[in-house]
C-alpha cells in the first residue's frame, strides 16, 4: 500500500516536472531551439575554423568530406569561367615553362659534360682502361674515382626471417640479387654472433661493419628490422647517423607491420622514401670545383652553334647568289636549263646559249658576280627570240655603214644608198639569220645606185647570190581553193613579187652567162576524179604561167606542167597549189635545184 502511494507520488512529480519543463523550455525544447537558431550563425562562425582543424586532426574526415565538394566546385567554375581561369593560370604557366626549360638545359649541359669528360678526355680513357683492368664496369670505377664516398645500395631486412622488405640503389647494376644478399647477410650475422659470443650470458652480438678493399657494408640492427648500406669509398660517420635515423623512423612508422610481417612486402613499399634519404654521396674535393661550370659542354654546344650559324650564313649567301643569277634567263638567246646550289658557296648553272647572245661571263661581270662562284656548263642553240634576231640584224648591218634600219613596222625596213651588189650581199647575209623570214619588200625602200664595177663582178659571189635568190623563189607556192583554177587576189599579189624576183635573177644570170627558166608545177588534192584532177592541175599551172607572162616574164622562160594528184595524207588542202622551181643552164646543161 505504502509502495503504491509512493509510486503514485513519483509519477505525479515527474508529470509536474515535465509541465514545468514545457513552460520554461517550450514544447520539445522549442524556446531553446529558437533561441539557438537566432544566434546559430554567430556561434558557429566563432568556432568553425577550430572545429574543422580539431576534427581533421582527429580522424581526417574533414578532408574526405570537403575533397569531392571542392573538386565539383572547381570543375563547375572552370566550365563556366574558363577564360578567367586561363587568365589566372597564364602567368603561372609561363613561369613554370621557363623553370622547366632552364632545368632541362642545365641538366642537359651537365650530362653532356659528364659524357664528354668520360669519353674524350685523357682522364676518361685512362679510367676506362683501369676499369677494364679491374674487371668492373666503367660507371662503378668512375663513381669510385669521383666520389669520396657514395652509398650505392640500401636494404631494409626483416630481422627475424632475414627476408628483404625493400631496397633502393643509386642506379648502378651491381649484379647482386638483393633477396639472396639480405638472407645471406642475416645468416652470416647469425653465424658471427653465435660463433664469437664471449660467453652464454652475454648479450647477442651483431655485425656492424663489413669492410673490403672496394666497399663497406654498414649494418644498423634494430629490434624488428635491419638497415644495410653498401658504400664505396671512405665512409664518414654521417652515413651511420643517417642510417640510424632512418631505422628509427621506419620502426616508428611501421611498427605494426613489422610485428605482423607474414612475408607480404607490399606494406613496406613506401619505405622507399626513407631509404632514399640514405643514398648519400660526397664528391672528391677536386671534382667539387669542376662540377660548377660544365666548360666542356659549353665549348661543344658553342662550337655546335657557331658551326650551325656559319652553315646558315653560307646557305643564305649561296641562295642570294642564286637569286642574282636567275635573271640571266631573261636575257635574249640565253636559256637556263638547270640552276642549283653546289656545296657551301657555289652555284651550278647549266645554260643553252645562242652564239650571238651576250657571253655569260660578260653578263656576270655586269652584275658584279664573281665567276669563280659559278660552275658553268654551256651548250649552243639557235634562238628565235625577236630581240636576238634584231641584234643579229644589227650585227650584220655593221658591215653596211650606208644602210639604216627602221623597226617601227614590226620588221626591219632598210633605207639608205647602196649598190646592187651591196644589196645582194646584205640579202645573202640576212638570209642566214634563222627566224627572220626575210621579205624582199623590206628592201624596197633602199635607194640602189647602179654600178657595173666592184666586187659584184666576182663570179663566185654572184653565183652564191644567185643561189640565194633562187632558193627564195623555190620556197614559194601559190595555193588554190577546192576545184578552182582561178588565182585568188593573194595569189596574184604573191606572183607580182615572184615576177620581180625572177626579173632580178634574169639580170644576174646574164652576167654569169647563164640561161634561166621557171618550171611551174600544178597539183591537185585527192578529192574527185583522178583524170579531172590531172586536167585541173594543168589548168592551175597555166593560170600562174599566164599571170607571170602578164607581169612581163618571157614565155620562153616559163614551163607549165600539171602533176595531177599529190598524195599528201597529212595536209590534204595544201595539195591544191602550184610549185615553182627555177632552173638555169650552163653550157647547154641544166642544173636543177631541189625543192626546198
Amino acid at each position: 500500500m505504502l509502495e503504491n502511494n509512493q509510486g503514485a507520488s513519483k509519477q505525479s512529480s515527474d508529470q509536474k516536472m515535465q509541465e514545468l519543463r514545457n513552460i520554461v523550455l517550450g514544447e520539445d525544447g522549442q524556446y531553446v531551439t529558437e533561441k539557438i537558431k537566432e544566434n546559430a550563425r554567430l556561434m558557429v562562425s566563432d568556432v568553425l575554423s577550430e572545429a574543422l582543424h580539431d576534427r581533421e586532426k582527429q580522424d581526417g574526415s574533414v578532408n574526405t568530406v570537403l575533397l569531392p565538394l571542392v573538386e565539383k566546385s572547381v570543375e563547375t567554375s572552370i566550365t563556366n569561367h574558363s577564360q578567367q581561369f586561363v587568365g589566372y593560370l597564364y602567368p603561372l604557366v609561363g613561369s613554370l615553362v621557363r623553370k622547366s626549360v632552364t632545368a632541362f638545359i642545365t641538366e642537359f649541359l651537365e650530362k653532356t659534360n659528364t659524357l664528354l669528360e668520360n669519353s674524350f678526355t685523357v682522364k676518361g680513357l685512362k679510367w676506362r682502361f683501369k676499369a677494364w683492368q679491374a674487371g668492373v664496369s666503367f660507371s662503378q670505377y668512375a663513381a669510385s674515382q669521383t666520389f669520396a664516398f657514395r652509398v650505392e645500395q640500401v636494404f631494409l631486412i626483416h630481422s627475424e626471417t632475414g627476408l628483404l622488405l625493400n631496397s633502393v640503389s643509386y642506379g648502378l647494376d651491381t649484379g647482386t640479387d638483393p633477396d639472396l644478399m639480405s638472407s645471406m647477410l642475416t645468416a652470416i650475422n647469425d653465424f658471427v654472433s653465435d660463433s664469437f659470443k664471449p660467453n652464454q650470458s652475454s648479450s647477442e652480438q651483431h655485425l656492424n661493419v663489413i669492410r673490403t678493399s672496394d666497399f663497406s657494408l654498414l649494418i644498423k640492427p634494430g629490434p624488428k628490422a635491419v638497415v644495410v648500406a653498401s658504400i664505396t669509398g671512405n665512409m664518414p660517420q654521417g652515413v651511420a647517423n643517417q642510417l640510424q635515423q632512418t631505422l628509427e623512423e621506419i620502426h616508428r612508422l611501421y611498427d605494426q607491420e613489422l610485428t605482423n610481417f607474414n612475408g607480404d612486402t607490399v606494406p613496406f613499399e613506401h619505405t622507399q622514401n626513407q631509404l632514399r634519404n640514405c643514398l648519400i654521396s660526397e664528391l672528391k674535393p677536386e671534382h667539387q670545383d669542376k662540377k660548377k661550370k660544365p666548360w666542356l659542354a659549353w665549348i661543344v654546344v658553342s662550337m655546335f652553334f657557331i658551326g650551325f650559324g656559319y652553315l646558315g650564313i653560307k646557305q643564305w649567301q649561296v641562295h642570294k647568289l642564286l637569286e642574282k643569277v636567275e635573271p640571266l634567263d631573261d636575257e635574249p638567246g640565253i636559256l637556263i636549263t638547270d640552276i642549283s646550289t653546289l656545296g657551301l658557296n657555289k652555284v651550278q648553272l647549266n645554260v643553252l646559249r645562242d652564239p650571238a647572245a651576250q657571253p655569260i661571263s660578260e653578263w656576270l661581270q655586269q652584275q658584279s658576280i664573281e665567276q669563280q662562284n659559278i660552275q658553268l656548263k654551256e651548250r649552243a642553240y639557235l634562238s628565235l627570240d625577236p630581240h636576238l634576231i634584231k641584234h643579229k640584224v644589227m650585227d650584220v648591218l655593221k658591215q653596211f655603214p650606208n644602210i639604216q634600219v627602221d623597226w617601227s613596222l614590226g620588221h626591219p625596213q632598210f633605207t639608205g644608198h647602196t649598190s646592187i651588189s651591196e644589196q645582194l650581199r646584205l640579202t645573202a647575209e640576212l638570209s642566214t639569220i634563222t627566224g627572220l623570214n626575210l621579205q624582199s619588200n623590206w628592201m624596197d625602200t633602199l635607194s640602189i645606185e647602179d654600178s657595173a664595177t666592184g666586187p659584184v663582178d666576182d663570179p663566185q659571189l654572184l653565183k652564191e647570190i644567185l643561189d640565194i635568190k633562187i632558193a627564195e623563189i623555190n620556197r614559194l607556192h601559190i595555193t588554190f581553193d577546192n576545184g578552182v583554177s582561178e588565182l585568188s587576189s593573194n595569189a596574184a599579189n604573191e606572183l607580182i613579187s615572184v615576177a620581180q624576183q625572177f626579173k632580178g635573177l634574169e639580170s644576174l644570170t646574164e652576167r654569169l652567162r647563164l640561161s634561166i627558166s621557171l618550171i611551174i608545177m600544178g597539183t591537185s588534192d585527192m578529192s574527185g576524179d583522178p583524170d579531172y584532177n590531172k586536167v585541173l592541175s594543168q589548168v592551175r599551172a597555166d593560170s600562174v604561167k599566164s599571170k607571170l607572162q602578164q607581169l612581163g616574164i618571157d614565155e620562153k622562160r616559163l614551163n607549165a606542167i600539171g602533176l595531177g594528184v599529190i598524195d599528201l595524207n597529212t595536209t590534204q588542202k595544201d595539195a591544191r597549189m602550184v610549185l615553182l622551181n627555177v632552173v638555169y643552164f650552163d653550157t647547154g646543161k641544166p642544173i636543177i635545184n631541189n625543192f626546198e
Partner: protein
Amino acid sequence: MMQKKVCLLGASGVGKTSLIKQYVEGIFSEKYLTSIGVKIDKKQVETKSGPVKLMIWDIEGIDRYCGFQPKYLRGASAYIIVSDQTRSQSLLEGVEIQKMIKEVTDIPGLLAINKSDLPEAWHWSQKELEEIQSGYEKTFYTSAKTGENVENMFTHLAQIIVE
C-alpha cells in the same frame, strides 16, 4: 609478392644440396655450407593464392655428434627433412633433427625420402615408417638424379605455408 623462408635439413650425405641444385636460382658457392653452415637459394613457386618467393636455407649436414645452428631456423615458415632410403641411419638422424626443431619452433615440416631412383636398402617396417611420417605434413619420395617429385614437394610446401 609474398616471401617465405624455408629450411632444408638432414643428415650428411643424404643429397640435400643435390636435391635443389637444378631447381633453384642461386649465386652462392657450396663452400658456404662448410664455412658458415648454410647456403641460401631462391625459388619462385606458383600457388593457388598467387606466386610465393621461397628463400631456401640449405643447412649443413648434421650428424649425431654435432647439432646445428638453431638461429638459422628463426623466422622460417616451414622445413623439409631429407633422408636417404639407402641408409637406415639417415632416417633416424632425421628424427633427431626434427626433435631439435620442435624444441625451438612449431612450424610445419615435410619428409623427403631421397634417392628414390636407387633400390630401397633400409630395414624399417611399414609400421615404423608410418609412425615417423605421422610427425610430418606429408612425405615425398624424391630423386635428385631424376628430379622426381622435387618440384611437387616445393609446390606443396609453398601451398601449406600460404594456407
